[in-house]
Every structure is written in structure tokens, then in C-alpha cells.
């Protein structure tokens, strides 16, 4: 009896021993820092000097009236919407195309994925040159086509900066979602289409009544992935526009980064981080709830 208890005890210790290394790293670099961020957000602190002044919720009060921050929140939401609208339809269309069973589509599937394997920083730099106002490939192309009036400084103008980066993001992420959709399409049993075609449902009809309903789950997953990603997005905006010009493409993450590490306002930067975390959490759980709810219809 006693030895059984002792054995279970030692098995439990063994389990903790298996868990401990992962838990230690996780607590040190993920959980701990989140709590510390919340604590820092109550201070006015440069991060460099040891002097930090406790200011209570003042940072948050100031944040409420911070135009740049709210501009960034708006941009994040716009980015979220535009990403879904630009990426999902093309990704789905390409997935349908490469699963058509035509010869040579295997080549296209591989080729289409290559842009997604270019490192993000390389993509950002490459597209800076594509969008360049004087020597850029895009303006050059427009010139060749006689569309001089469309030429502009894509990344340097407030009106187009955010959209230009959205275009680059589409180029990077369409292949990824294409593969997600393709995996789901391949999983649809062929018999369904055969049965449908006997009943006279082919082409668009088959797509409307078989493919789309069966793809719903995957589309939902893709949309959720895309929107969660958009709410915390940073990389290409930071590389290509730095949030500029004049905050036209500022995101919550780039604003936080600049506040903390360029202006060394660590306290305020922490408040920005905590606030964007809350906003992202609220927006994504609302949307998740909404899509979950609709799925039950």
C-alpha cells in the first residue's frame, strides 16, 4: 500500500521533471514579461536611466487622447479587412485551379509557393525597389503601358503607403492560403461530384452546392488566422514604410516599437503594448464568437 503511494509520488515528480525545462523558459520569456509589461505601464520611465516615476494610470489616460495611436488602431482594422479581401479570393481561386487535375498543375503549385519562401525582410526590400518612384519596376511598367498619370511614389505618399504594403503582403501570403485551401479541396470525396453531375449539377453549381459548403471550415480557419495576424502585424510595414509617411501606415505594433525603442519612452510604450494586446484580444474574440455563432445556423 505504502509503496504504491510512494511509487505514484515518484511518478508525479518524474512528470514535473519532464515539464520543468519547458515551463521555466516559457515563464521567463513569455508569461513573466507580460506581467512585467503591465507593471511598467504604470511608470514614466526612459529605460536607460534608473529613475522611474510611478504615474498610476496616467499613461492610459494620455493614450485615450493619442491621435497617432487611434490612427494606428484604425489602420490595423483596415489592414485586417483588406488582407482578407485581397488574399482569400485569390488563394481560393488558385487552389481550385491547381486541383483541377490538369497536366502540369503540379509544377504551378510548386512555383506558386516560392514567393512564400522568400524571407520577409528580403521581400520588403525587394518591393521597396519595385515601388520606387523613379527607377521602380511598377512605375516603369505603367510608363511602358502609357499610364503615366498612374505613376506615383507608392510608399512615400500618404494616400497609397498602406495599400502598397497590403499588395506586397498579398503576394507573400496568397501562396500560403492557397495551400491550406488546396489541402481541404483534395479531401473532398470525388463521389460527391460524380453524384452531383448525374443530377445535373456541374461547374458553378457543383462549386456552389458542394465545394463551398465543404470548404466552410477551412475558410473560417484561414480568415481567423489572417485576422489574428493582421491585428499584431509588424514586419513588412516596419521594413517598407516605418509606419510613415506622417503615420499614414502606422500600426499599433510599429507605434509601440518606436515609442519604446526609438524615443525610449518605456513606460508609455508598455501602455501602448498592453492596450494593443487588449484591443486585439477583444476584436478577435468578438469575431471568433460571431463566426462560431454563425456556423451553428
Amino acid at each position: 500500500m505504502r509503496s504504491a503511494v510512494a511509487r505514484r509520488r515518484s511518478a508525479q515528480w518524474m512528470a514535473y521533471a519532464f515539464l520543468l525545462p519547458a515551463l521555466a523558459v516559457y515563464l521567463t520569456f513569455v508569461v513573466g514579461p507580460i506581467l512585467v509589461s503591465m507593471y511598467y505601464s504604470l511608470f514614466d520611465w526612459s529605460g536607460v536611466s534608473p529613475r522611474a516615476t510611478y504615474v498610476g494610470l496616467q499613461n492610459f489616460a494620455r493614450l485615450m487622447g493619442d491621435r497617432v495611436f487611434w490612427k494606428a488602431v484604425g489602420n490595423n482594422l483596415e489592414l485586417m479587412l483588406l488582407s482578407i479581401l485581397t488574399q482569400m479570393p485569390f488563394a481560393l481561386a488558385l487552389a481550385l485551379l491547381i486541383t483541377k487535375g490538369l497536366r502540369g498543375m503540379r509544377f504551378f503549385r510548386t512555383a506558386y509557393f516560392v514567393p512564400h519562401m522568400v524571407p520577409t525582410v528580403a521581400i520588403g526590400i525587394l518591393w521597396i525597389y519595385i515601388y520606387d518612384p523613379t527607377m521602380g519596376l511598377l512605375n516603369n511598367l505603367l510608363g511602358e503601358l502609357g499610364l503615366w498619370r498612374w505613376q506615383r511614389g507608392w510608399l512615400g505618399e500618404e494616400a497609397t503607403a498602406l495599400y502598397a504594403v497590403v499588395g506586397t503582403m498579398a503576394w507573400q501570403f496568397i501562396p500560403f492560403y492557397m495551400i491550406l485551401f488546396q489541402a481541404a479541396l483534395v479531401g473532398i470525396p470525388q463521389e460527391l461530384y460524380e453524384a452531383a453531375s448525374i443530377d445535373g449539377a456541374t461547374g458553378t453549381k457543383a462549386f456552389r452546392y458542394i465545394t463551398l459548403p465543404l470548404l466552410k471550415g477551412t475558410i473560417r480557419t484561414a480568415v481567423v488566422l489572417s485576422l489574428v495576424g493582421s491585428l499584431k502585424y509588424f514586419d513588412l510595414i516596419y521594413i517598407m514604410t516605418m509606419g510613415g509617411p506622417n503615420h499614414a501606415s502606422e500600426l499599433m505594433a510599429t507605434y509601440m516599437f518606436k515609442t519604446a525603442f526609438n524615443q525610449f519612452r518605456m513606460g508609455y510604450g508598455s501602455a501602448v503594448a498592453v492596450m494593443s494586446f487588449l484591443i486585439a484580444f477583444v476584436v478577435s474574440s468578438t469575431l471568433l464568437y460571431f463566426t462560431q455563432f454563425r456556423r451553428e445556423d
Partner: protein
Amino acid sequence: MSTRGMATATVQVGPTPRVSRWPIWRQRLSTLMSYVLALVWFVVAFTPIFFMVLTAFKTIREFLISPWALPSQWRLTNFASVWASRFPTYLTNSLIVTGVSVLLIVALSSLAAYAFARMAFPGKRPFFLLILAGMMIPIHITLIPVYILTQWMGVYDSILALIGPYVGFALPISVFILTEFFAQIPKELEDAARIDGCTPFQTFYRITLPLATPALATVAIYNLIGAWNEFIFASVLLQSPDAFTLPLGLRQLFGQYGIDTPAVMAAVTLGSLPTILLFILFQEKVVSGLTAGALRS
């Protein structure tokens, strides 16, 4: 497992039926349209890449005369000057950081996953949920505390600083994938090993791990690409160019070469080669690793 989905994908069973009811000319037209669309997207996906690679072989003069023309001869001068810069240092740093991080991620997450999948201990569920919650955490909220932490630990501005956060943020998804996989492995083999007198660690190391190779590969590839591309932590935690990883290094070279577009393109081309080669060599594994990782979150 989506690996199975991907395996079927290679067989290319198209979900769209061969529409027997359509007149032959409509089938032909539809096939033709498919190929036209496939080519159009090929052009969209590859124009930037061709631009990047071709420009890398040009002289500045050639580039200024026409960004579209082929280089008059295939010069390697630009690549040579990139290689003579700090590029090899950046590459080495990235290899070390990525290698060490991935090893630690696989080791720590498989240990923890084994505890979650196979052992009984108090607090199992709360611990599991705590780790899973990490999948929703945006990196930004931890940036400032991690920055301060690395300074305390004395690793700031060295590649060692990156390993902790890379491992910490990779754990949730990795533990999740592996726990799921371990739970599917039949228990009998492990029971037999235990009866033969294996300690829990021996059972885990000799029996379970070898059986989990596909899941370990998924975890390794997903995190390998993540760590290789990582940009935010690297830009916060590294300051001197000798410590830069490839993403930061490419940005540095971009700043250095500036209007020498061909040199920048040579840097970006060289910087993109490792991941593209990885993709070409292990296509299915890379694709399923990326999508499996994403689908779990």
C-alpha cells in the same frame, strides 16, 4: 494529420469532375482558360523574383538603362562584393541561432508533451492551458521586459539573447502538436518497455521519440523557418552588426548599398537562397510543416 492530406495532394486527384455532359469545345475552352489563368498568376508571382535575380547580375549602368533587359553578361561581381561584406557573419549567426533554438524547442517541447500525453500529475490541465494560451500572445507585449531581462542577464547584443525568446514563443504550438501526436501512439510498446525495466526517460527516449519522427520534423521545420525569418526580437536585442542575424543583416546591407540597386538585389537573392533551397529539397515536408503549424494555432 495533415501530412496525409498533403501526401494525397501529390497524386493530384482533382475535385472538379471531368464534365462529361459538356460539349467537347466547352471543355477545351475551359481547359485553355485554366492554363491562361495559371500563366497569368505565374507572371504575377515571378516578375518580382526574376527582377531580383536578373538585376543582381547587372551593373548599375545596365540597370539604369532598362530594368527589364537581360544582363549583357552573367557577372558575379555583385555577389562577390556581398560575400566580401559581413554577409557570411550574418549567415553564420542565423545558422547558429536557428540551429540551437530548433534543437532546444524540439527537446523541451517533446519532454513537456510526453508529460502531458502520458503522465498523471496534479495541475496537468491548468499547466496545459497556460502553455496553450501562449499561442494568442502578440510578441510586442513582451518586448520591453525581454529587452531589460537580456541586459540583466548580460547577453544583450549577442545572438545568445535571441534563443530564450525564440524557444519561449515556439513552445505553445510545438507542445500542442507533439502532445496530440504522442496521445495517438499506442501505449502497449511503452508498457512493454516499462516491464522490461526501462525508466520513464528511457521509455520516452528509446521508444516514443523514434515513433514520433514525423511530428518532430513538422515541429522542427515550422520553427526553423520562424526563427530564420524572425525580425522583431532581433532588432530589439541586437545592436552591433557583428551580432546581426540574416534579416537584420540584409537591412543593414540595404542601407549601405542604397542606390546601388544591383548590389542590394544580389544581397537579397543570396539571402533568399537558403529557404528556397530547403523548399526545393524537402517540398512536401516544408509545405506540410508550415500549414500544420498554422492550422493548430
